[in-house]
């Protein structure tokens, strides 16, 4: 079976590759950002910010090339779904990058503050969960692996739980204002990681759409945040 | 149920309402008008064969090889056959190259200006000029001028020779030759020419390598048809010097040049005409026999044409 539209498909896979580049950057960044906050390591934080410039650059380029490819190729069927997924993931990953930057920045503002071991432990745990989850999501995209993608909501479960428990942990930190400030910042970090988890789930949703053509939300995203009623 | 009623209704409305006699009648009438020609042909042939039968029965093919004679029982048509073949040859030699060249010029070279359009219209009109008018031309131009030594080929040339007849017939078929060739050339797609020009061919290269090969079957078909027309022509030769008589002979030691330029000639259709004018009832039979030979020769030419065209058509798909 020859591929008649090889130049177009070349084009399309270049686009996909750009998105994957950003995805891999994000995976790296999320690990680095958590590390930067936990250590804390300002250099590492700076490198995250730097990476994000590349992410943003790629994001813009991809968007423009997306529009051009769309105008030029009028893709259909699976190609069209891939195009729509690419646009979606492009935006999602740019935001993931932003979230990583948000995390990394906390390293700077919290570098001199006292810490709470419990909270730090929770952050560590979340970090250990979120990066692999993102990797799983990206892998499921690369391999068009619906099964893997469908595992993502379950993987998001412990992250959400940890994020929910953060309130309590933060409140429990009081009354020392410095620790409280640190903990409050960490709540933001947790929140960011929780969002990265959500974005991983979002990627999974897109993978399922890409492969099956059916677009479903894995779960009400309104649920990921805040307590169960 | 509503469903059944719909389908029943539709079914009823689609039903055939008897055969259309109008259709059948009209088709029959049209077919008859075509078959009328066949009937004519059959009757003509049958009548001719019946009339010619005694000749063939008594003389076999001898009358084909015999020369003209005032005696019915020994009169033959060999001179007519030879004359017709010679004329045909001259037409091929004169009209074919001239006609093809002129057509190539008009179709491929000439700019589409008033001049060219005039020439084209002129040629189409020439094709419609009655053949007897060409006879007048042949008489005035060739017989007379040759007689006056203008086209001298040999000493003591006579104006009433094969050259004059051949030229007259050539001129007669030239417009038809040009038109059929032009048509064949026109049928060659513009795309083919553009393709050739597009790879840097000159006009002549395009014509020689692309246009003419494609047009050739058409040109040849046209040529054969044209020549068979010349073969059957009578009227112009009446004026163009063919001998219309019961008897003439050609010197047995005439050379080729002498034959075409200095000996009397006739053609098969003229012999038919002349026979048809003779009093003896035997001449009616002889006329019919000569006609059969004439038709036989023409039919073989036409059959060849039809075969040729069929082959070309099939090759083109």
């Amino acid at each position: 079976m020859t591929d008649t539209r090889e130049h177009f498909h070349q084009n399309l896979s270049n686009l996909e590759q750009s998105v994957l580049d950003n995805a891999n950057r994000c995976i790296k960044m999320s690990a680095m950002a958590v590390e930067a906050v936990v250590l804390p390591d300002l250099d590492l934080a700076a490198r995250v910010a730097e990476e994000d410039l590349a992410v943003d650059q790629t994001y813009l380029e991809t968007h423009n090339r997306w529009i051009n490819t769309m105008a030029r190729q009028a893709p259909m069927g699976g190609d069209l779904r891939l195009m729509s997924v690419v646009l979606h993931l492009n935006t999602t990953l740019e935001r993931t990058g932003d979230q990583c930057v948000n995390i990394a920045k906390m390293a700077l503002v919290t570098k001199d503050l006292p810490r709470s071991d419990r909270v730090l432990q929770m952050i560590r745990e979340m970090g250990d969960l979120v990066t692999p989850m993102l990797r799983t999501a990206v892998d499921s995209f690369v391999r068009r692996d619906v099964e893997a993608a469908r595992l993502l909501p379950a993987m998001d479960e412990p992250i959400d739980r940890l994020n929910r428990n953060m309130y309590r942990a933060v409140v429990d930190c009081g009354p020392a204002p410095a620790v409280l400030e640190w903990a409050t910042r960490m709540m933001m970090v947790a929140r960011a990681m929780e969002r990265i988890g959500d974005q991983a789930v979002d990627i999974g949703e897109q993978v399922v759409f890409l492969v099956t053509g059916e677009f479903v939300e894995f779960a009400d995203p309104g649920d990921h945040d805040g307590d169960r009623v | 149920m509503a469903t059944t009623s719909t389908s029943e209704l539709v079914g009823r409305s689609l039903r055939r309402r008897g055969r259309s006699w109008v259709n059948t009648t009209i088709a029959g009438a049209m077919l008859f008008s075509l078959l009328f020609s066949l009937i004519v042909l059959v009757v003509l042939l049958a009548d001719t064969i019946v009339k010619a039968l005694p000749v063939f029965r008594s003389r076999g093919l001898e009358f084909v090889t015999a020369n003209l004679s005032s005696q019915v029982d020994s009169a033959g048509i060999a001179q007519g056959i030879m004359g017709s073949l010679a004329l045909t040859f001259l037409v091929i030699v004169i009209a074919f190259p001239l006609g093809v060249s002129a057509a190539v010029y008009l179709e491929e070279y000439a700019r589409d200006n008033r001049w060219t359009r005039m020439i084209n219209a002129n040629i189409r009109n020439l094709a419609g000029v009655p053949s007897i008018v060409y006879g007048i031309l042949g008489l005035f131009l060739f017989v007379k001028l040759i007689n006056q030594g203008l086209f001298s080929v040999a000493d003591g040339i006579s104006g009433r020779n094969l050259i004059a007849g051949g030229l007259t017939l050539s001129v007669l078929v030239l417009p038809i030759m040009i038109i059929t060739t032009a048509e064949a050339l026109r049928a060659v797609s513009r795309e083919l020419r553009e393709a050739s020009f597009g790879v840097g061919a000159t006009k002549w290269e395009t014509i020689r390598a692309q246009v003419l090969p494609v047009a050739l079957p058409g040109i040849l078909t046209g040529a054969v048809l044209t020549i068979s027309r010349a073969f059957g022509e009578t009227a112009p030769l009446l004026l163009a010097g063919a001998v219309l008589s019961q008897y003439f002979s050609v010197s047995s030691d005439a050379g080729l040049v002498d034959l075409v330029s200095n000996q009397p000639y006739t053609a098969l259709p003229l012999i038919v005409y002349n026979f048809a004018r003779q009093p003896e009832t035997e001449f009616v039979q002889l006329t019919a026999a000569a006609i059969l030979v004439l038709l036989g020769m023409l039919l073989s030419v036409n059959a060849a044409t039809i075969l040729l065209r069929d082959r070309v058509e099939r090759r083109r798909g």
Partner: protein
Amino acid sequence: DGGPETGSSAVAATGANSIAISGSSTVEPISARVGERFDAANPSNSTTVEGPGTGDGFARLCAGEIDISDASRPIKDAEAEDCAANGIEYVELHIATDGLTVMTNPSNTTVDCLTFADLYALTGPESEGLENWSEANALAAELGGFAGFPDADLVVVGPGEESGTYDTYVEFVISDIAEERGQEESTRADYEASANDNVVVQGIAGNPTSIGWVGFAFFEQNADVLRAVEIDGGNGCVLPTIETIASFEYPLSRPLFIYVKTNELGTKSALVEFVDFYLSDEGVEAVGDAGYVELPAEDLEATRAAWAQAKG
């Protein structure tokens, strides 16, 4: 030069061994037969025999284009002057006799014998427009003819005006009466004319109440479907037969000639040999073969003598 020439009028009698004969269509069968027999013995010779008409033959003879002119009447003065003007010399050779035959359909039993007056009344210039035999009665009676024509459709068929036969018919039958009556010396214009004598024959044979005329040979060929009418030229009714024609008893008998150009006799041996053969006993047989009446011996001798004299 612009001189009048027809398609068959330009035979240049040039080649030393080619003989061009033209002229009367009536004589043509005789000359053709002679030519044929001559060529059989002399294959290197080329002979052309044509029969456009007597006058045409003379015109061409006098233009120097042919060697022999066939003629179904003697040369006219005007034609002879023409020859003289062109320096053409010739000899007139009487070779046979023909009888112009007036015919009708065999089923026509009412008419057996006609006088010139009857023929004038039926076919002369004053008959133009007549469509019934009986309509000619008045004129025939006036001219002293038979005048007992029945009430039947009149159909006149004959050779075209171009032919010498037509000419002879006018000369013998019409001219005198027409001249007398101050009429044009021609037949009525509205008869069925054809250059093809066969058509004339068919025209008469195909119509029970027709009348027409052709050369005797043409009649004889079709004697089964035609009936010759006796002609009364003043000496009673005579039926055309070989005998009556030869004896000129038949009023429409006429002599047939060949006119041989004598200018080139010295150089053109083929022509001399040809005419010699024409007048030989073998040559003269052609006359009878063609359906015409051979000359009596004395006339033939006179002709041979004339030729011998011309040869010098």
